[in-house]
């Protein structure tokens, strides 16, 4: 039999005004097992906590029921107080008589009655409580960063700087991500490569960081502190150790007709290639889809010219098994496919381009060497129309996204401004729904585009773009002037919505990390835990969590690193104490619980048992890893024999509460 103390809090007048706290305390004092009761103005105060501690000592209490505010508010406070007085912290139950009683009822009689019932339920549950101890699990002091864009780079650098080992897995042959494709950055207009490539070099030179480029995460097992990750290193057909990155092979390869994905297909590369001059790691890669040698077995030019003897046509994918304590998701974004936006003639004319393609055309390392030329005929465009919100902020019924892609307003202003600066003879129109420029120096930047550079900003959407005689006829409406416009543009640039990378969804499944309907990773708390996933040990960096510009991405990447460092700094993690546990003697070994566990916490093992009839039997029984179990209880209901139960919320405890309420 427990020796229970009941502590009824007035919460000033918050509870006491509607609930007769003395009557509650007295009524609960008559319940079986209750040896002490008390009411006090503020149980959570220092003095209130002392009352609890003293009563525990003076009356040798084995448990305490606190009738107070929501357990979400002060459960921990009271648990700590109980622990300080020498009883197990899980021997405390809260009856929520504020949020779920005094604050919602006006009638003192019924509110008092209800408070007594809630107190009885808590007492009934407490009678069945048992001391719980949270387990501990060790932490592998190494982090994995999935994605080598600016988010992944920054997170990896910060973690490495704190002295922990980090691996970056990047599916492309080089790290750098989208930022490496961008020409200039807003609002400062400094060159993206100039600020990104030094960071890439830092990553390459860091002793703490390993880069698995041209690799993908294939499987994730384990849990916070102890992840086992399978990483598939795709065959480059080039020995990474021997290749010096001289680039001779990429000049001599006879297969010249390979679409250059780094330039978004605006020009062509060779079948063996290095994406760009500052690539990290600077190692050539053979595109197996185009390489004549790999397809027909006849060529071998690259192998002949390579003085390092690095070419290896027989190279195979390899799968590495690595252990990590924390995993950072930095899978980034892509512009959406524009195939469904045929009104803008994206698939009909090469002169209708996306903003990212515009970046490549204006980039000095791009297909035109940085000269703004039309993709169709290589002439200077004299009239450019920028269309904003292509696929963003749609009503949800269309093919686009309901959210704002956030970065388009600013990069369009940048594109418009840079065009006017370099080519003052070019007329620039920007069609917008709203111009959204919150951010440091952002609105000033946009206003400069309008006021100093004379960019024509027109509120309204473009209805149709039709290619006619080498021109792009843009039909649009000007909502402010209230008139229809017809512009004979030379180039149309579409600010396509951005969406999470396609690899994010299968990755989320592997990580059991949750996603929203747009496939952005969900954060553990939208305001207070923005860089953590609800799944312990999984952290979020950059656009995989939501659209972001570069400064925000870097800020979030560093915040994410701080969280990872905080985790890796610990030698041991305290597990959740309220975990599922099977009664092995009842377990049928049917595997039903294993199937509903979202964390893979349940495994089966064959164990020898001494049975009640004195025989020895080998039985297949469930086993819960307490470090992985989060205590949801899905398994407890799935179990047909009732072998699986949950600490802290056991079948009998919940039924005792039901009984107390229904009495």
């Amino acid at each position, binding site marked *: 039999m427990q020796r229970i103390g009941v502590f009824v809090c007035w919460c000033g007048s918050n509870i006491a005004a509607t609930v007769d706290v003395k009557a509650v305390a007295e009524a609960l004092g008559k319940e079986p097992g209750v040896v002490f009761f008390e009411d006090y103005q503020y149980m959570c105060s220092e003095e209130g906590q002392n009352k609890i501690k003293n009563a525990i000592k003076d009356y040798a209490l084995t448990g305490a029921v606190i009738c107070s505010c929501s357990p979400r508010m002060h459960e921990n406070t009271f648990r700590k107080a109980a622990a300080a007085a020498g009883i197990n912290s899980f021997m405390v139950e809260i009856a929520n008589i504020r*949020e*779920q009683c005094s604050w*919602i*009822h006006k009638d003192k009689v019924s509110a008092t009655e209800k408070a007594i019932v809630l107190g009885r*339920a808590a007492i009934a549950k407490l009678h069945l409580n048992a001391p719980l101890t949270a387990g501990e699990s060790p932490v592998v002091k190494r982090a994995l960063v999935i994605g080598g864009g600016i988010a992944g780079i920054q997170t990896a650098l910060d973690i490495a700087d704190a002295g922990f080992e980090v691996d970056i897995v990047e599916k492309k042959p080089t790290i750098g991500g989208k930022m490496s494709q961008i020409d200039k950055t807003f609002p400062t207009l400094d060159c993206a490569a100039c600020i990104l490539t030094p960071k890439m070099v830092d990553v390459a030179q860091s002793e703490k960081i390993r880069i698995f480029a041209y690799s993908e995460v294939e499987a994730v097992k384990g849990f916070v502190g102890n992840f086992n990750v399978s990483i598939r290193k795709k065959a480059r057909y080039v020995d990474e150790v021997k290749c010096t990155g001289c680039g001779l092979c990429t000049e001599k390869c006879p297969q010249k007709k390979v679409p250059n994905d780094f330039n978004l297909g605006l020009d062509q590369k060779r079948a063996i290639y290095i994406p760009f001059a500052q690539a990290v790691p600077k190692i050539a890669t053979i595109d197996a889809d185009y390489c004549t040698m790999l397809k027909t077995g006849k060529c071998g030019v690259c192998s002949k010219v390579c003085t390092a003897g690095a070419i290896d046509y027989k190279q195979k994918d390899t799968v590495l098994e690595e252990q990590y304590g924390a995993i950072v998701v930095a899978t980034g974004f892509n512009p959406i496919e524009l195939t469904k936006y045929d009104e803008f003639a994206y698939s009909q004319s090469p002169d209708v381009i996306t903003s990212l393609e515009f970046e490549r055309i204006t980039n000095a390392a791009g297909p035109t060497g940085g000269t703004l030329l039309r993709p169709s005929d290589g002439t200077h465009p004299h009239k450019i129309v920028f269309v904003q919100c292509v696929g963003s902020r749609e009503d949800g019924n269309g093919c686009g996204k309901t959210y704002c892609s956030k970065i388009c307003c600013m990069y369009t202003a940048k594109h418009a401004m840079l065009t006017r600066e370099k080519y003052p003879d070019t007329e620039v129109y920007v069609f917008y729904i709203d111009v959204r420029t919150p951010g440091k120096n952002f609105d000033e930047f946009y206003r400069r585009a309008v006021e100093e550079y004379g960019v024509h900003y027109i509120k309204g959407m473009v209805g149709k773009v039709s290619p006619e005689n080498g021109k792009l006829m843009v039909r649009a409406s000007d909502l402010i002037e209230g008139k229809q416009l017809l512009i004979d543009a030379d180039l149309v640039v579409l600010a396509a919505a951005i969406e999470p990378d396609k690899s994010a969804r299968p990755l989320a499944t592997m990580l059991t990390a949750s996603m929203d309907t747009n496939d952005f990773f969900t954060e553990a708390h939208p305001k207070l835990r923005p860089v953590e996933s609800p799944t312990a040990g999984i952290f979020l960096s950059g656009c995989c969590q939501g659209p972001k510009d570069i400064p925000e991405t870097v800020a979030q990447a560093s915040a994410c690193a701080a969280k990872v460092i905080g985790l890796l700094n610990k030698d041991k993690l305290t597990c959740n104490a309220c975990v599922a546990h099977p009664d092995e003697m009842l377990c049928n070994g049917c595997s039903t619980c294993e199937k509903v566990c979202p964390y893979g916490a349940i495994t089966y093992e064959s164990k020898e048992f001494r049975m009640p009839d004195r025989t020895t039997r080998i039985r297949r029984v469930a086993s819960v890893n307490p470090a992985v179990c989060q*205590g949801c209880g899905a398994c407890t*209901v799935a179990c047909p024999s009732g072998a699986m139960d949950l600490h802290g919320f056991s079948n009998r405890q919940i039924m005792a509460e*039901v009984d107390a309420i229904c009495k």
Partner: protein
Amino acid sequence: MQIEEKFEPTIVAFCCNWCSYAGADLSGTNRLQYPANVKIIRVPCSCRVNPMFILRAFQRGADGVILCGCHPGDCHYTTGNYYARRRMTLLFSMLDFLGIERERTRLEWVSAAEGAKFAATMNDFVETVTRLGKNRRLEDLRCNK
């Protein structure tokens, strides 16, 4: 004059810790009223609610049982409410099949931000169950003799 005593139903509400219990707290914080007949039992997740608990409540005299969890897709444990939905759909359908009014059981998704929805749901549920009257509980005929 005889005053007819108003029927006060006993309502058990199972609320998941992460969304609905917080939603219930929010309706308290916002001082949104609902009848004192509703007594809440906190569970970690809607998937923790065993049909046994619901039957037990009916057995012990509950007139209505409502289960509240995170909206589908928002489960703190990612998939718990999907399992809960299937279990409750089948259980409620079975209770209906056995002749227990379907309005006595309910599954609602209430997020931590939906204090108003929680209060409105409870008001509606209490009203519905009050209208139905005392639960007849599939009692054994032999016990009535």
